[in-house]
């Protein structure tokens, strides 16, 4: 129990409350920043300017949005199931914040160091799907229902590759404690030895976060926002808050597990400020990648999404876990083990790419340009008539 955040010992409960308060406050600010950042970055990807009119360079846009959402009427359809409808946002919102308990920002900068931190994060993160299904069911709207069922199918499918990818990293790091995992990659981050799990992790968080190409549950052009279609005002903003908080947390998790967290490449001795900067940079890079994928990719179809998870990602991730176990159970010297891990993982990544290429097929040759003779003009018409 490291209840000495503020430099002196206080009551454990008071300490926990202080930490939680800090986190919730920070989270709200971070989410607002993320929304602003996403709008600006996506705007640049689309050669636009993004928000410019609220505050200097549009900085206050998120604040304005938040105020508007809070002030908006909280509408509930008459035919909705009142309890399920009203409670659903909390079921989405609370688990995301619970994930935060085990996420480390810097050395000794987390709410609680849990021995099974990774396990805890995964366990809690899968609860929020209940909220999604509740929202879809409670809204009494067919789009919402369709979206909620899609969300449930998708979340369950992609939970498994996510778990498997993190377990394989846990095996390599010899711990499920996030601080330990970061410490174990002081020299070389895990992404080098385990590129396949990183790929799996990235794909799975895209699906967990419902971002393109996996935004099927909320697909604007199909189910018009899916489970949120009937929500407005503060409840809708809770869904949104949860979504961006999850983005932030999963990016931090990815930074810690795969990119070396605060340790690599500076090492643990550097000050708290540097550690925070490193974490922020790595998480920021992941978030940028998510945004980048979002502006580029079309949406997959539900059957393609499921097939990709169950037929490609999941078997491969099992193989990765088994391979890691096999390599490490014989306890070869460190460098040989590392090279073996990297080789297996790299081969797996290439296999996934190969499967992706071959499942879609080669680009079809460009359409034929009909030669002039085949599309003969008027003069030959009378001939043809004869």
């Amino acid at each position: 129990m490291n209840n000495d955040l503020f430099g002196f010992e206080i009551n454990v409960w008071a300490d926990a409350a202080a930490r939680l308060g800090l986190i919730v406050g920070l989270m709200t600010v971070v989410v607002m920043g993320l929304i602003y950042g996403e709008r600006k970055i996506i705007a640049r990807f689309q050669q636009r300017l993004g928000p410019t009119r609220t505050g200097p360079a549009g900085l206050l846009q998120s604040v304005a949005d938040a105020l508007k959402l809070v002030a908006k009427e909280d509408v509930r359809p008459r035919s909705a199931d009142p309890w399920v409808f009203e409670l659903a946002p909390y079921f989405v919102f609370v688990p995301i914040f619970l994930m935060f308990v085990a996420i480390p920002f810097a050395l000794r900068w987390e709410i609680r160091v849990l021995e099974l931190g990774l396990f805890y994060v995964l366990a809690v993160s899968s609860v929020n799907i209940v909220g999604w299904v509740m929202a879809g069911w409670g809204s009494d709207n067919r789009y919402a229902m369709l979206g909620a069922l899609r969300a449930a199918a998708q979340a369950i499918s992609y939970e498994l590759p996510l778990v498997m990818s993190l377990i394989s990293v846990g095996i390599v790091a010899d711990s499920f404690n996030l601080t330990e995992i970061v410490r174990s990659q002081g020299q070389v981050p895990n992404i080098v030895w385990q590129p396949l799990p990183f790929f799996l992790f990235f794909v799975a968080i895209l699906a967990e976060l419902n971002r393109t190409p996996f935004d099927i549950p909320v697909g604007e052009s199909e189910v018009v926002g899916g489970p949120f279609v009937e929500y407005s005002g503060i409840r809708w903003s809770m869904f949104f808050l949860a979504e961006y908080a999850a983005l932030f947390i999963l990016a931090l998790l990815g930074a810690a597990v795969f990119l070396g967290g605060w340790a690599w490449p500076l090492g643990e001795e550097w000050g708290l400020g540097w550690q925070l900067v490193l974490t922020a940079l790595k998480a920021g890079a992941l978030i940028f990648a998510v945004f980048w994928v979002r502006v580029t990719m079309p949406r997959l179809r539900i059957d393609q999404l499921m097939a990709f998870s169950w037929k490609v990602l999941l078997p491969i991730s099992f193989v990765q876990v088994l391979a890691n176990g096999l390599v490490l159970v014989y306890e070869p010297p460190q460098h040989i083990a590392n090279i073996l891990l990297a080789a297996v993982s790299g081969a797996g990544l290439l296999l996934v790419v190969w499967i992706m290429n071959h499942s879609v097929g080669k680009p079809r040759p460009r359409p034929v340009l009909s030669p002039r003779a085949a599309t003969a003009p008027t003069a030959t018409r009378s001939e043809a008539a004869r």
Partner: protein
Amino acid sequence: MTTVPFPHEHEFETQDLMINMGPQHPSTHGVFRMVLQVDGEVVRDVVPYIGYMHRGGEKLAETMDFRQGIGWMDRTEYLAQHNAELSYVMAVEALAELEVPERAQWIRMILCELNRLSSHFMFTGAFGTDAGIFGTAFVYSFREREVILDLFEEISGDRLMYAYFRPGGLAWDVPDNFARRVAEVLKSTRQGIKDMDGLLTENEIFRARTVDIGKISAADAIDWGCTGPVLRASGVPLDLRRTEPYLYYDQLDFDIITGTNGDVYDRFVVRVEEMRQSVRIIEQCMERLRPGPILPDRLPRMLRTPPGEVYLRTEAPRGEYGIYMVSRGGNRPHRLKIRSSCFANLQALRDMTIGSYVADAVVILGSLDIVLCEVDR
């Protein structure tokens, strides 16, 4: 027609879900409504409903003289206004036997092809959104469309409802810097086509979503009366610019694009390649453009036509845009029928959609590139 194997059929009782898509739905391109009967995610039946935009445009055009009617044609086809106006004024010219000066014809061709570019950009953008890209394709295509619309505004004075063609020629001449401006627009357009092509055409996810979806065979497409890129994607090389050349299309060198598979992907690629051909056509037109009059020497103040009838069709971006004009003499048509290209394409929607997924229904509808104002008139 795609058929999706459905292994657990009849294993247990399921109930089909009726989903009412539209008239206010982000991907119905206006106020189209279709009622989908879905079994899980698979579409079992689809019933399209149109008519939310019906304004009686044909009846109104019968009350307007030949100059006033031009403004109405813009409003039936708000993405290819020049092409719509062209059909109308050419029908009047055919009835009144007007000679159109050469310069006016070349300018008409340039504007129609530019309009085809702007319309196809609109398609690629909207189609990207239907396929699920977060606005990127849309913004890229609007960026290019904006450049073209700016040029149209400099020429005709309006960004959308040009009312620029007149029976016998054009309302007024193009500005002096026309050649330079067209060159600028084409430069930007080429980059835009390249962006759009690079963003979508080869993208694996895009291909997974579009290849072999919404297939329609050549025979079916002909039977349903499909036109334009939808028909050509099925492999029928029917393009009125080549089969029944009007204006000076017979003097130019360009290719007719036909697909091989008749699926959504082919309809997309056919349009992208058509944009390249349009650029070619405009370049050739600019070489042949000479100074001269833009209206015939003797044009009556109030145009009257002898009795007669004509069905005049031109190749608009979405296919054959026909004007069936019956005149009983006088300064207005006795009957004006607008043969809308989207109307014909939309008929085939049901055939294409049944058996596909809900998400595919959206993509198939997007690939038809409907303009509801034109469907309902």
